[in-house]
């Protein structure tokens, strides 16, 4: 229905139509993906290749543009810029624009069961006997006012809707409403003020994740051992270390965003590293697309 509407739309330009059609296709793909989720794995290698060819490739391209020396020179240049040539960026600029979404392997044996132990920096706590704050600020008041804010926001919406229903000067009201919406959209954050420094995700400090250990249970081996012996299952069932973040191809000395971006770049350009990464992504189950 939406697709037909878009195709028949008189006001929308081509770009809008394309965006809308993409959105509908996205919904359809998502529904299909959700249906497949958790069932027998299918097309997961293809999915991982998409991850590499989109997300990791983009990072790799940007890493190639990191050129601390020429950033300043480039800014000073007054001559007409070559549009095809991407301008150099600093490593800080590159790192700061990214966040990392970590997606965990599951216990359900879609592949092998797995989970992860994260390690993080607590050195400053261990070294500081006065670390604990003496006064603890409770949260009751904050959550009470937050509840009120959420309640009011829904009431405001109801009032906006009823005003529109009354239909007084709809056009004018619509204009006003749009302006108000843009101004008051509290779900749009303001830019991080300069006075704040980069946090533990970016610069090694207290609470920065330093390392992880990935555990998995090799079900084929465990089931086989169980089959060949008469011992209790608890003596046979075990998790073992599959890999850690400080071994190849991860080779990360800390888990900052910068280290993840370097890893993404390596995984994009280094085939053996990529293959090992994918093998571990599928919890060493040996999964391949049909």
């Amino acid at each position, binding site marked *: 229905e939406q697709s037909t509407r878009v195709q028949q739309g008189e006001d929308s330009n081509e770009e809008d139509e394309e965006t809308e059609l993409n959105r509908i296709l996205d919904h359809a793909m998502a529904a299909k993906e959700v249906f497949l989720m958790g069932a027998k794995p299918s097309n997961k290698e293809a999915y*991982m290749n998409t991850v590499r060819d989109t997300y990791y490739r983009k990072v790799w391209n940007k890493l190639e543009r990191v050129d601390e020396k020429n950033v300043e020179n480039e800014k000073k240049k007054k001559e007409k810029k070559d549009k095809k040539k991407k301008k150099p960026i600093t490593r800080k600029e590159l790192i700061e624009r990214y966040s990392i979404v970590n997606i965990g392997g599951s216990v359900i044996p879609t592949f092998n069961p797995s989970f992860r132990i994260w390690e993080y920096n607590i050195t400053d706590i261990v070294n500081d006997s006065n670390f604990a704050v003496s006064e603890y600020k409770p949260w009751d008041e904050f959550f009470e006012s937050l509840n009120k804010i959420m309640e009011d926001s829904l009431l405001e919406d109801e009032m906006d809707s009823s005003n529109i229903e009354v239909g007084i000067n709809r056009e004018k009201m619509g204009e006003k409403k749009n302006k108000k919406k843009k101004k008051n959209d509290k779900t749009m954050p303001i830019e991080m003020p300069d006075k704040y420094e980069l946090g533990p*995700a970016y610069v090694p400090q207290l609470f920065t994740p330093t390392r992880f250990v990935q555990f998995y249970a090799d079900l084929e081996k465990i089931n086989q051992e169980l089959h060949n012996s008469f011992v209790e299952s608890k003596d046979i069932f075990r998790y073992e270390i599959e890999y850690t973040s400080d071994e190849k191809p991860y080779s990360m000395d800390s888990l900052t965003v910068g280290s993840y971006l370097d890893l993404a770049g390596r995984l994009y350009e280094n085939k053996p590293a990529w293959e090992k990464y994918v093998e571990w992504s599928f919890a060493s189950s040996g999964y391949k697309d049909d």
Partner: protein
Amino acid sequence: DVKTGKERKLHGRFLHITDIHPDPYYVEGSSIDAVCHTGKPSKKKDVAPKFGKAMSGCDSPVILMEETLRWIKENLRDKIDFVIWTGDNIRHDNDRKHPRTEAQIFDMNNIVADKMTELFSAGNEEDPRDFDVSVIPSLGNNDVFPHNMFALGPTLQTREYYRIWKNFVPQQQQRTFDRSASFLTEVIPGKLAVLSINTLYLFKANPLVDNCNSKKEPGYQLLLWFGYVLEELRSRGMKVWLSGHVPPIAKNFDQSCYDKFTLWTHEYRDIIIGGLYGHMNIDHFIPTDGKKARKSLLKAM
């Protein structure tokens, strides 16, 4: 622990566990073709093994969950500070002979929550919220009925989850939890927090999610909660881990929800340590671009 006055040893380690999917209908020796529920296997390859079989399409036998938790108890429990547990605690709805019911979903979630409590609690009978290791659960798309569909609270389902997670969700957050099914836990009081984010409100496969721009949209309300909580954490000088079931990547979220969520994580890069999610069963990471998200939002406006 300035909140309780109890002395705690920090280990600098935590556990992330996700998508357990225990299936009480799993029968060892049944047919994999019949999702390991019934049937006589035609060949050796089709036999459902005791602990489950990788890539078979069957869910987890209950013993796999139990042995996993036992192994964690014996090998990790006393070496970690907190547990991030990102949902889907029920079998898939993949057997027509046994369609999944709402009661089954709640019952199994109750069972798994009890097991987590038993494993990590301090055993203080007077205070069931007293944990040696804090546990932060979040809601999976299979933990709701119907599958994927979850309305803005308060609803019977948000109330039921508050009941099931009563030991995990701080009491003063009951009302905001009722609205958003999301909450905050201070894993190191005054210093480090974990947010349990109900990402189903941003999930494009949730039929009740259209966008994150209208105030009545569940995603808008969730982002409102998210923004205020982040700002409060910043004002307290705290750092935070984000957690949830469906990962905040473009293929999973409605576009406006994805852009806004990504932008929040970008603009609070002074306090957010990272995000841990489940749902996809594949162990990997995805970098998300905050600058691009802002551009996309401005263009849409």
